[in-house]
């Protein structure tokens, strides 16, 4: 479990705290989504979860290890893998396989085990054909996949994904989200997904909305999707289907329930005859 107790953080020379007094528990097998506008503190929160940033006040602990003790940082970072949104800022090796092997090598694993992890991780993100490629020759979305493979090869217990899909096409997003969910089921890892897409966040068990450095709302996807205009106020775009239903209901004489999430149910309500 990752536990945050009364955590605040202010960047050096920052005028105001980026994170203010957040307390939160993330269970070892949970899938939670974090949402909020640009600049709300989501990425700062992500960096606090694996000890990349240390709280100015309060405490962050991972499976009982507090990030305030320097000797805990290495074990914490082995447990908690963090993926940044921009792939170019985290690629460093000359070849894809070296890139993915970098983490496992640093863990001091046997060469055969490293090979195995690299191959498996690349296969998981469907990039096994690029094993000998230099990362700089890949497209933005392919680089994002390589960064994911690097993270997976470390076999962390918690995956913190900060907008991991921003450069991927819809099918790529769906495939990778399915992969992460399967890993959670089969290997019991926890997923923390930071996203601007409520459609993606709906797949989580809990959604946390961060605003102005504080937790604004914690709820189930069903709670969050029906927040209506409140969502826009915290910089979140409602589901496309909710927008559509809202637009339908603007017309006099039309009243469609706001909590419908699948098109076929909606079409059945609109046209019940068939």
């Amino acid at each position, binding site marked *: 479990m990752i536990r945050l107790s009364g955590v605040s953080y202010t960047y050096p020379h920052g005028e105001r705290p980026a994170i203010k007094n957040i307390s939160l528990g993330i269970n070892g097998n949970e899938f939670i989504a974090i949402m*909020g*506008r*640009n*600049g709300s503190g989501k990425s700062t929160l992500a960096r606090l979860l694996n000890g990349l940033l240390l709280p100015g006040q309060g405490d962050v602990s991972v499976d009982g290890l507090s990030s305030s003790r320097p000797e805990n940082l290495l074990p914490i970072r082995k447990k908690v893998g963090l993926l940044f*949104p*921009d792939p*170019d800022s985290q690629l460093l090796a000359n070849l894809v396989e070296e890139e993915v092997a970098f983490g496992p090598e640093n863990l001091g694993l046997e060469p055969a085990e490293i090979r195995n992890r690299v191959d498996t991780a690349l296969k998981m993100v469907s990039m096994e054909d690029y094993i*000998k*490629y*230099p990362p700089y*020759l*890949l*497209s*933005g*979305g*392919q680089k*994002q*996949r390589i960064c994911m493979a690097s993270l997976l090869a470390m076999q962390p217990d918690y995956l913190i994904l900060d*907008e991991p899909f*921003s*450069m*991927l*096409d*819809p*099918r*790529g*997003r*769906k495939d990778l989200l399915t992969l992460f969910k399967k890993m959670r089921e089969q290997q019991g890892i926890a997923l923390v997904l930071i996203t*601007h897409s409520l459609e993606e966040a709906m797949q989580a068990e809990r959604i946390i909305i961060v605003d102005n450095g504080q937790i604004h709302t914690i709820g189930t996807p069903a709670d969050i999707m029906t927040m209506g205009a409140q969502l*826009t106020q915290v*910089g*979140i*775009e409602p589901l*496309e*289907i909710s*927008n*559509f239903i809202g*637009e*339908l209901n*603007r*017309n*006099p*004489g*039309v009243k469609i329930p706001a909590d419908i999430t699948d*098109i*076929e149910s*909606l*079409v059945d309500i*609109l*046209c019940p*005859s*068939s």
Partner: protein
Amino acid sequence: MPFILKDVSFTYQKGMAFAQKALKGLDFTVEDGEMLGVMGAAGSGKSTFLQLLNALLKAEQGYVFYEGQDLAQFSKKQLIGLRQEVGMVFQYPEQQIFADLVYDEIAFGPRNIGLDSEDADRRVRESMQQVGLDFAEYSSRRTIALSSGEKRRVALAGILALKPRHLLLDEPTAGLDGEGRRVILDYLQHINRQEHITVIMVAHHLGQLLSVCRRLMIIEKGRIVLDTSVSRILDHYDRLQELGIELPPHLEAAYRLQRRGWKIDTADVGVAAIARQIADKIRSGS
């Protein structure tokens, strides 16, 4: 016609171990003042396509014509002129911000092309207004202290200050929150409709592209697999399914209702237009 591509192919690292064909035999025309959305999977060739249009990359085979002239024949001086007329906004453009102050960042381009400080100042004010950044509030702010949505707008203003006639954008809304996305998309639609600037944008969200573009192109493995006017998007329903691209809910619903015998005109793909027709049908009890 600003851009004509004839049988264009492009290979990265040609003749090397990692040679990779990015585009294959592309034939394509863009009209003045079009607003074109480009989709495709990672590595499909979308970004390569954009970079061919302002000669950052040169076609390895075939021709790219700009205003009737073969880009391969352009002199260095002509290329500088081309890149002022054809503005390019890369992925995550805010990472290319280097000036300390917002004003200096946006003024860099105009100063660089030799405008005096008065003209440069006018360009800065105009382009800030275009992207919705208040001059008094933002011009003396430090770029490092801006949010990513604000930085994105500063980067965009920097390109606009060069007064491009055509604008190429690679995923201009990636990583932005709902509000930031809306501002950028509305703004792009505005400069296209009001100022007749050609806009060619790569994006991954079909709903967003349909909400502002008039034409949609999908690239897969280096080839154009769909090229349609947005008003005819439902004609290609099966193709989109094959490509694994989901329609936005209002169009998916319209399609399924059409299949159930409802007459819904989808020439206007806007949510409001579709919703209004459906509401009319419900009221008339059909």
